[in-house]
């Protein structure tokens, strides 16, 4: 856990914000996590964007939840878990299970009730479903 300055497009922005308010990156990360949590809760409650008549669709909320989740996850892993300042071997270690998670998601797609006839063609090359659909 060093007190070094963070660089890079995202971590560097965190660092600039920290320098701006005279605090460390951990404090900025903490504030961003709190704000994003408020934002994701608000996204579920509102049916329209406040002060407009633009409807917030379920798809949009889903997208907001995913994007905020990824940003929050990055904030915790990069700064609180120090992956940003530690040797790269730890980041590689942390990313290792992603392979298995991707395989799981693939399996979920294949075993989905709609998977028989709704999967994209690249996912089901030349499969013959006649024995199932007949």
């Amino acid at each position, binding site marked *: *856990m060093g007190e070094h300055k963070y660089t890079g497009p995202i971590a560097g922005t965190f660092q600039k914000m920290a320098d701006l308010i005279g605090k*460390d990156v*951990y*404090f900025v990360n*903490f504030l961003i*996590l*709190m704000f994003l*949590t408020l934002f*994701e*809760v608000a*996204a*579920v*409650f509102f049916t329209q964007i406040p002060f407009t008549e633009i409807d917030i*669709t*379920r*798809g949009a*909320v*889903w997208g907001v*939840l995913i994007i*905020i*989740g990824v940003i*929050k*996850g990055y904030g*915790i*892993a990069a700064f*609180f*878990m*120090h992956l940003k300042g530690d*040797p790269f*071997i*730890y980041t*590689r*270690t*942390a990313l*290792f*299970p992603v392979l*298995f*998670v991707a395989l*799981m*998601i693939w*399996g*979920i797609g294949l*075993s*989905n*009730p*709609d998977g028989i006839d709704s999967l994209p063609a690249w996912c089901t090359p030349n499969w013959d479903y006649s024995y199932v659909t007949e």
Partner: protein
Amino acid sequence: MEQGGERMSGSLHDVKNEVWMKTVVIAVGLLFTGLLAYGVLAGGVGSIKHSEWEDAHHELENSEMAWNVANESGTIAEQNAAGKVWEDAHHVDVDAHLSYLTWSTAGKTIMVMFIVYAAFYGVAGFFNSIQSEEEHYEGDDHEEHHGSASPILMAGGILLFMMGFPGFVTTCKAWLGLDYEPNMTGFMLSSIGTIILIMGIGNWWREDMKGYPEQVATSAPFKGQDIRKAGMWIFLISETMVFATFFSSYIRMRTGWCTQWAVDAGRCDVVDTTTASDLLRHDVMTLLPGAINTFALIISSYTIVLALKTAKNVNWKKSENALMARLFPSRKKAVRNYLLITIALGSLFIVLKLVEWSHLIAEGFTIDSQAGSIFFVATGAHGLHVFIGLLIMLFMVFKADTVGYDEKNGRGIEYFGLYWHFVDLAWVAIFPAFYLY
């Protein structure tokens, strides 16, 4: 100070028996506090809320009778009026029931948590306090680290505990007056396993309090890195897979359900499955426990970072702010108090989680359904991780208060912090998936 494959993790400490006896005193205090919380919350406020619920239920029964009479012999207007009265009474009854559950569950949860805290402190501390003084300290600052047998002891304890657990549960149910046959073999097996587990924890605790040389990896891929840190990350990989299985089962089932969300999104027509999020996200008050828990975990992640920063900061100075100076009067006490705040926030998480569960169960969302099963197993496993973290932090608070954490042995906080942040990270995924989506 690095010697071959080892570097020192702080100097070795001599922790006397009288220091260990402090844990027994703390355990008694924790036990008393737990019983007091139960008495005030569940016994006191809970009783008042229970009588309010009984009154509300009585009103509901009366309004139901009046509605039945109106349906049999009244006019349409009278039937509608009676129906409205019944509906209002039903809402009051539900609110009164949930209010009673809130206080009662909070009191019971705090009591059980504090009993476990007390058992952990009392048994493990007492076990260490009766060791001979020579056992505590061998007087060799360059002692070679031989590894510890404690995890094997703990694993054996867990094995026995799990083997006897079904019998343990049925025996407890029988003692609570439910219609079950006590299984004393299972109960004894589980009890012995628990004692062995706590002895293993106590032994590990003693070894860590004493301090030992930090082992450093000598070969790729972690060459030059602390073995404990590499081990913690590999452990976190396995934890990621555990939570990934919960998510995969949830996503797999969720894509097949016609939930309110799916209907709103136009993907299907008739709701066939109610998820926890359907019951939680429609109102601020029902979502509040989950939202507070999210904030509590984020704040606790930050306080553990502050504990580590303080431990490593050799130039630490007392704050000029009077309140902060009082809360954090010295570097040693600041570390301890940051850890205590983290424990308080983690305990709040557990209490709110169980309050929320009690509300969901009261509304008919139980583990019997597919949606309930996945929700309770996933959030329960996460809650268990939080609780295990709290038990580890109890030890860390004791160490911070006695031996103290500094720039030499602060790594202990850092490696525990990795686990705690991971628990926070898992919640970052669980909260939107199970509460908001």
